[in-house]
């Protein structure tokens, strides 16, 4: 079986939607190579998930529901993916380059001495069979073309939101093959002891809309209650929770932040957008009180529509923005939230 394999990431027995983008990219490759598209799913519910991926173009699904694979861990996942690659010699292995996807593909590419291209924004196949991609380098300040090695299996990890999911073909089912795990529990050096889920929060890198705050959120006109250890930090945290979050909520989006806001302790690092944070490319990026330092731009400039709200009309963020609103975010953002509630009927 020569094929293009697409690893579909799951969480708590459900496929992450971003996996459909990987099937979209996988389909481009499968058609070009003239081989079937095969989904690879490990963990609880893998057989049902794999079959249903037929709706998004998977012809076959290779699955394993063994308990050693219940929670994602690199060692058992990589060992099994590596075995599949060695046995089937696929043309390519594709996945979304989430933190799990990146390490899994890197590990299996290392095991099989194969080429690996990560953070892929677009791809094509050359006449000699090598996959050629465009990917960001220098913290997203420059793009680079890179080419894999047609001699073996070519591994490709995609940037999220860079590829389209295939059109759904309702009711189509992939043909499912169940495989056995490679490692027994005794042979796995890592044991997960707890997981604290961030419930109800939209993941920044998946978000279609991001509302982001900078240092200016500390100009919150609300008075900090007596006795808080740091009134400025309280005001900024209150602004993120009660001014920016409601706007994100009405849009079904996520809250981001500049490095300045994170470093000042206004919001946890997980929200940081920019060179030392996350790189995002939502449909809409609303920058509130963010001046737009080059490091921040590196993380958000590929957003489709950028809206800048800033008191300083000279702020560099206005050079990137499609729409610029000069004024006080504490007046504009609540007005925007109210208007959207009305217009979107929420």
């Amino acid at each position, binding site marked *: 079986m020569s094929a293009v394999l697409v690893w579909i990431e799951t969480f708590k027995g459900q496929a992450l939607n971003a996996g459909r983008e990987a099937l979209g990219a996988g389909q481009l490759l499968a058609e070009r190579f003239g081989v079937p598209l095969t989904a690879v799913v490990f963990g609880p519910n893998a057989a049902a998930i794999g079959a249903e991926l037929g709706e998004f173009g998977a012809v076959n699904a290779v699955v394993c529901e063994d308990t050693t694979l219940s929670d994602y861990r690199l060692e058992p996942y990589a060992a099994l993916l590596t075995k599949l690659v060695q046995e089937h010699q696929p043309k390519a292995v594709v996945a979304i380059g989430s933190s799990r996807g990146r390490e899994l593909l890197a*590990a299996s590419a290392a095991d099989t001495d194969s080429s*690996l291209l990560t953070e892929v924004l677009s791809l094509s196949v050359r006449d000699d069979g090598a996959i050629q991609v465009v990917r960001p380098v220098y*913290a997203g300040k420059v793009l680079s073309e890179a080419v894999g090695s047609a001699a073996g299996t070519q591994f490709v990890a995609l940037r999220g939101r860079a590829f389209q999911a295939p059109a759904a073909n309702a009711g189509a089912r992939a043909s499912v093959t169940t495989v056995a795990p490679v490692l027994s529990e005794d042979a796995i050096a890592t044991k997960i002891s707890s*997981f604290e889920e961030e419930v109800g929060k939209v993941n920044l890198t998946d978000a279609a809309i991001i509302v982001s705050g900078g240092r200016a959120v500390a100009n919150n006109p609300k008075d900090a209650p007596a006795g808080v250890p740091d009134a400025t930090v309280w005001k900024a945290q209150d602004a993120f929770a009660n001014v920016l979050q409601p706007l994100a909520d009405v849009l079904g989006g996520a809250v981001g932040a500049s490095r300045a806001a994170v470093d000042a302790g206004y919001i946890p*690092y*997980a929200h940081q957008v920019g060179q030392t944070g996350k790189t995002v490319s939502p449909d809409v990026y609303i920058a509130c009180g963010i001046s737009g330092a080059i490091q921040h731009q590196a993380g958000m400039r590929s957003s489709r529509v950028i809206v800048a709200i800033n008191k300083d009309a000279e702020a560099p963020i206005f050079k990137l923005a499609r729409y610029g609103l000069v004024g006080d975010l504490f007046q504009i953002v609540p*007005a925007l939230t109210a208007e959207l509630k009305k217009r979107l009927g929420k």
Partner: protein
Amino acid sequence: MQIVVFTRSTPDTAAKVEVAADGRVTWGDAALVVNPWDEYALEEAIVQAKNAGGKATVIALGPEMHNDALKHALAMGMDEAARVQDAALDPADSLSYATAAAAAAKKVDGVELVIFGKESIDVGSDQHAYQTARKLGWPMLSSVSKIVAVDFAAKTITVERLLEQGKQVVTSKLPAVLSVTKEINEPRYPSFIGIRKASKAVIPEWSLADLGVSAVAARTQVGRFMNLPAREGQVEMIAGTPEEMATKLVDRLLEEKVL
């Protein structure tokens, strides 16, 4: 017991990086700095090695420009530095890098922990860290935001990892490879005495023959570099009262069908 950190020199984060007419990537007269993510790895290695009474060694792969990063690391307080230099080595290819890095880590006596920064900003990737772990045959713990406990005698480590859906606590056997995120610590600035000492340090060069490995042919090739496409269109400034601005902006966003 020793802890090894891999680092490299990259252009300063504030530098304007672009592709020159001749196709090369340039960053004007901006200084080379230690890859910003690696500062967290270096800080953690210094602290953990001191706590355990061990040593911390920093290694870079590639040409002499990486000595800048190594000297910064020594100035911060790393005990030893080395640079792997070999004409046959292509450190831009992760597989070539990982093969040499794994051999270099094993050359360090009693190494129990290898720490990487989350990513190298120049090559825009973290794959070399995971591949080094695989070539060592050691477990990989990525995106570590906290070392909860480490016991070098019992050879176990417990860490907190920052994943997309939340925080995971996981225990692993040592030796292991870690990649660390910004939440793990506050990197120190090099002291004046540290800088003076580091400036005089002679950094040993290791060839692939010294490491006992042969070169791995690069599996990937980098083609041309390109500047980012300019963002299309001019900014449209929306004026008025906050309510008027809100109405006009929502009109525009609905017209663009992005909501």
